[in-house]
């Protein structure tokens, strides 16, 4: 699905990713954990194509294609989805118009026919139920006036609408209460399939009780320094990150 080789990236003068390697196969869920400032969100941003970050080395192959050469929208059309840590509020742009445009672009890229208004609305209804998103929210402006939980549910709703091949969840659990966390996880789990992969970036183990990963990585100072099974997340929860820092040092 995705193969990241020796990826290096910086913002301004500061090097954040310092030779990161990661391979995610179809159907797998990988969790990336790590202390603050280790580069977790940078990784998500670089993969999604945020222009503030400069890639200074390495390569990313996404389904056989060079991901880093693509514009953000091409990545999305190729099937990469980033659930934002801080979803943006866009006053005046209705969720519906926005999603219709997005779904239209993605379908066109995949050589699928455009959805009729009726089919589109049916799809909205089906997918919004998945994350228990109030039908009204779908008709409001993008994220405007949404609570933290609603914004994250809206991210998962959009993911369900766009049916990506690889979804990156960037600290989707941050700021969520336990009910919202359960709903978000339920949405993600409903989308698990042998063809779809997930990279779940989180600071806490809590999310992984709900979205059970196949592999857990620890990111520290821009590199993956430890890889294990879901038990590694529990160990981190218990011991914190200090023992990792010591082993690396």
């Amino acid at each position: 699905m995705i193969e990241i080789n020796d990826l290096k990236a910086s913002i301004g003068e500061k090097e954040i990713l310092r030779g990161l390697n990661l391979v995610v196969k179809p159907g797998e869920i990988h969790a990336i954990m790590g202390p603050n400032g280790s580069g977790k969100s940078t990784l998500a941003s670089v993969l999604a194509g945020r222009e503030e970050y400069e890639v200074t080395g390495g390569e990313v192959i996404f389904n056989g294609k060079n991901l880093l050469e693509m514009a953000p929208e091409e990545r999305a059309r190729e099937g990469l989805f980033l659930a934002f840590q801080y979803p943006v509020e866009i006053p005046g742009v209705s969720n519906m118009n926005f999603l219709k445009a997005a779904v239209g672009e993605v379908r066109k890229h995949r050589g699928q026919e455009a959805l009729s208004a009726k089919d589109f609305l049916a799809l909205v209804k089906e997918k919004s139920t998945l994350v228990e998103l109030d039908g009204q929210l779908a008709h409001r402006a993008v994220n405007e006036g949404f609570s933290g939980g609603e914004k994250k549910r809206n991210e998962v709703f959009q993911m369900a609408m766009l049916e990506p091949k690889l979804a990156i969840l960037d600290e989707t659990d941050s700021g969520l209460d336990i009910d919202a966390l359960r709903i978000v996880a339920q949405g993600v789990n409903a989308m698990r399939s042998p063809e779809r992969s997930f990279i779940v970036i989180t600071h806490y183990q809590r999310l992984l009780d709900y979205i059970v990963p196949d592999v857990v990585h620890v990111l520290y100072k821009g590199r993956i320094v430890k890889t294990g099974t879901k038990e590694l997340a529990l160990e981190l929860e218990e011991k914190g990150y200090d023992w990792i820092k010591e082993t690396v040092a």
Partner: protein
Amino acid sequence: MERVLNHSIQKWLDATLTYDTIKHQNHDAIEDALSGMEFPNSKMEDWKYTRTQKLNQGQWILQGSEVNSDPEFQAVSLVKTKIRPGFFGCLNQAAVTNAFSLDIASNESFDEPFHFVIKSIEDWAWTQPSFELTVGENASAKVVLHFIGKLNGFCNALLDVTMMEGSHLDLDIIQDNDDSFFQILDIRVDEASKSHCNVLTHTLNGGWTRNNLWMSLNGEHAHAALSGFYLPQDGQLIDNHTVVDHRVPNCTSNELYKGVLYDKSKGVFNGKVFVRKDAQKTEAYQSNKNIMMSDDATMDSKPELEIYADDVRCSHGSTTGQFDEEALFYLRARGLSALGAKQLLVSAYVNEVINRSNNAEVVTFVKQELSARGRIIADEV
């Protein structure tokens, strides 16, 4: 008494002699006023940012506009508009080419809009239409002035609105002129107590456009809403000068002008709000927002608030900037092209103004027109 006119003014007046114009009831006073004037230029505060040379150099041929109205109106033979302080206003009054007067009787309420289409089609045509509109006590109406200007033309239009007590008016102005067309539109609105006037200027296109809108709140509990949008491209110029004059207590005004400026276009916004000494409990809000789509576009925005009363709620603000990069990235990260994302943001931005119109037909028409021209994306699934 012999009048000695400034050379440039004389030239314009001479040019009016070739057409059989409609007389103003205060013709002499208007000629007196003109005799003391200079042709507008950048040394004048009111014309500081808007160049007038090209307009002054035009070989204009005065003629009537082609006016179609629904329902049909008879042209009037004597113009009674209030004398304007500026050159172009007086010029219109000195030589009116088309004059219409619309009186809405007291307590009459019309759901169907009065729709005027004012068209200029000939090359070098110079037209000076004049409109007088009175909305009687507790009457309510919707009026649309739809200007269409073709080729190299100049339309210098004027409108007087008198709102009687408790009256209600939705006035939509549509400006749809060619890239080489000049338009000046001077509107003066006088509002009696408890009247409510909502003016919206939809500038769809035009080479050089100057709008003066002056709204005077003369009776208590009157409300003035004024808004407009503009999307100039290439070398177009759009200038909106507005004045809201709170003369008495307990009135409210709400102003919103928004623009998206492309290419080498130029925008000017000058919005004055006066709150007179007696106008206590005034609530006046003004906002001008601009998005610059090109490094070569310029915007001069000047909000002015003059408050002489002490118990008022007023705010004004002006912002000029680029699109929110985060919003753009968010939309692109969902598969929208950079252009598509910008179009979606422009649509939302402009719709905020268009949706302030209470005339559903106009809202639909304007959105369809802009969307057909690729300026916005039509909304709703």
